[in-house]
């Protein structure tokens, strides 16, 4: 829709914006492809059942850390992750562990890190993910204290 509007306003500018979109596409095609393939591997070998077994029953800080690690590594869509997290919670996992899992799941991405590096550099990627991980643990502990 915005594209149509742009086309009406200026044909040249629209063409150049499409050109820059295409350039962007070319620069990111290969790393994106590799990343998606890696995700395929992860989803195959780290099944939801495996995750729930690892953090399901054991609580305590170890469960929290394990959950945070799992959340960092796997890349699941939120629409699958929340039902999964809910079912693990009902199986007796601690609130902290689930909070750690959900938070690192969305904020920390080990699989997407190479891609992130390509766009923002190594230092940015490392620190963003590292800080997010630490804060996910803090959030998890606070939540465990309040709701647990």
């Amino acid at each position, binding site marked *: 829709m915005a594209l149509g509007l742009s086309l009406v306003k200026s044909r040249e500018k*629209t063409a150049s*914006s499409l050109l820059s979109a295409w350039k962007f596409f070319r620069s*990111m095609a290969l790393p994106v492809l590799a990343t998606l393939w890696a995700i395929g591997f992860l989803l195959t070998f780290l099944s939801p059942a495996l995750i729930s077994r690892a953090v399901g029953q054991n609580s305590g800080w170890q469960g929290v850390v394990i959950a945070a690690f799992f959340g960092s590594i796997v890349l699941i869509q*939120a629409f699958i992750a*929340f039902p999964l997290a809910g079912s693990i919670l009902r199986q007796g996992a601690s609130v902290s562990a689930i909070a750690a899992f959900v938070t690192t799941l969305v904020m920390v991405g080990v699989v997407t890190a190479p*891609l992130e590096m390509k766009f*923002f550099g190594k230092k*940015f990627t490392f620190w963003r993910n590292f800080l997010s991980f630490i804060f996910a643990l803090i959030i998890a502990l606070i939540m465990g204290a309040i*709701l647990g």
Partner: protein
Amino acid sequence: MKKIFSSKNLLLLMGLATIIVSIFDRPKAFSVLLSFKTYLLEMLSVLPPILILIGLFQVWVPRKTVVKAMGSSSGLKGILMAIFVGTVAMGPLYAAFPLGVSLLEKGASLFNTAIFLCVWASIKIPMILFEIKFLGADFAGLRLALTLPSIVVISFFLNVILKGRNFYEKT
């Protein structure tokens, strides 16, 4: 280092790994390729609108506007702007990377771009609804209340660590 982890090699590695897996466990290899295909299709459906948006953004939005709204002297307004832009858009985190870069190119501060990325990753209105449904309103609300300030603090540290350097900004 850089050479070993180039995307081409990474792709080759994936191909090789898939072949090896298929020798030992054929269904597993199929499942790898199947998830790959699923995510590829998802990516292809998400990407074109985002790329077009980026293209339009680059051509139409003047640099001055971005600097004013999200530059290093934008203060609280810049933070709110970054949060707003991050929440409304849809799509996985990897779709936000190119958008973040084009924000940097247009003169948004590193601090605000980091906020944008983190918010994009963690705070989405449909996602929050989903979280409420499966984990309860207490859980979702508290997590949201804790995540938002954390993001600001994380971005603040990031900005300090990287000394606010903006590699993309052309001066």
